[in-house]
């Protein structure tokens, strides 16, 4: 099922990637080539097969509840684009 140009723009928006009209067109062609490859999956009947989400069928390991981390804010924020008063600054959030 070929992707429409609108779908390409929609997923670019969902992924928060700005895309120009010409990029969207080029991307549409490439994605449709790739989905041509992906569609080969549909040839095999998998209705009776359980999906495999992890490489090993193991159970989640649980950590004991306890505080093991200390304040490293100044180190972490030394690589931040914009901080003030210990806060990460972003363009105004409107609810």
């Amino acid at each position, binding site marked *: 099922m070929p992707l429409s140009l609108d779908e390409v723009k929609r997923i*670019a928006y969902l992924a928060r990637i*700005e895309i120009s009209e010409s990029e969207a067109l080029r991307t549409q062609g490439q*994605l449709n080539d*790739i989905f041509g*490859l992906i569609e080969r999956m549909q040839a095999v009947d998998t209705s009776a097969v359980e999906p495999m989400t992890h*490489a090993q069928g193991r159970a989640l*390991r649980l950590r004991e509840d306890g505080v093991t981390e200390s304040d490293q804010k100044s180190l972490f924020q030394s690589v931040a684009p914009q901080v003030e008063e210990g806060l990460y600054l972003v*363009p105004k959030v409107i609810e």
Partner: protein
Amino acid sequence: MFNASLKEIAAALGARKISSVDLTEQFLDRIGRLNGDLNAFITVDRAKSLAQAREADARIARGDAAPLTGIPIAHKDIFCARGWLTSCGSKMLSNFVSPYDAHVIEQFNRAGAVILGKTNMDEFAMGSSNETSFYGPVKNPWDRAFVPGGSSGGSACAIAARLAPGATGTDTGGSIRQPAALSGITGLKPTYGRVSRYGMVAFASSLDQGGAMGKSAEDVALLLNVMAGFDARDSTSLERSPEDFAGALAQPWAGAAAEQPLAGLRIGVAREHFGAGLAADVAEAVRGALAEFERLGASRVDIELPRSELSVPAYYVIAPAEASSNLSRFDGVRYGYRAPEYRDLLDMYCKTRAQGFGAEVKRRILIGTYVLSHGYYDAYYLKAQRIRRLIAEDFARAFSRCDLIMGPTSPTVAFPLGSKVSDPVQMYLNDIYTIPPNLAGLPAMSLPCGFGAGNLPVGLHVVGDYFSEARMLKVAHHFQRATDWHLRAPKGI
């Protein structure tokens, strides 16, 4: 020293024939001479490396050296190393000096190894040619007009060009093995969960696995000894008692005698690995290697991996799906690149990500976003996960009849720089043999087994059952004792 094995280097350091500082300086100088052309390293930091080397020398002097103490090791730029730029080959992280160490880096630091530098790679490990790096392509030392393979192309090139005695890599769909094959070195991707993913920038979490790259199986075993091990900070890390992958390399296969050390070894050969799409030169070299194994006593078993052709389509659903989510954290808020100009929050996100990611990364994020989106999840994502199980089951059946599976690592030898960049599908099909073990979580390695067209190296792909790394390395080691493919170095290097 540049052609010496890790064992030989360790012996020289131990005998005080050379200091770690001298050794590190020699490699740094060599990198200084050759890296401008090869582009294997993104970052070297002489002062940092030499400081570690001095510590290593003191440790050696104290007499408590571990096997890799004082040996400089190159790390793929996907591993976070405190105080080092950790770019992952991306503009997005081109200003990210990591505030912490990956588990793998901690392990090497604990072993007293020296960080020689951070190696070039495809952006976020997405690529098979090392051409998607923000820092430019890496060249194949065997012929600089050709790609070294990817995504761990910088590490492969560094080993092949003798810029580093050992290196780390990561492998999501072949990113250690394919560049190892194309660059003529040995590389191993362990069983999923052997090497902690903590501090390894995530591409596709259920497939990513750190591994080792070196000149020989023996070197790889020594590197793996340091890298592998349980880490409580990775929920998929396996709790297993420590193993010495290097200790029993020279011993023959169980029950075999010295003159035929691999007698009893059953090598599975799948028809599917020798079908259309496999270049004749590669097929010939791989058949030659299989004949050599038979001379060493191994027997051949015909096996079937009927669903292996579905691995590429399934992989190109699963890996982008996970990647699209893993890469959402790169939003310009807490670290990394932020677009210089934007109208509002939404625009900041969209511009930061449009400018910070390269074309291939964006392509895969879009694929992943699409296959997870409403209405397509079942048809793509769940379908791919089901095929993933079928592929794992194919392997389980095969391993009931053989000990290891061998075949070609890559369908062709290295291809010219620029020849596939505009055709993603052709690029993706490069990984047809290397992807299935990632889907199943199995260990797999590539070792040099000859040369093809243009005198470019050919890699032999060895896939083992879960946790059979020690046996795989032993088998590879016996092959390398009987052959000298792995000792060949590129001309002019």
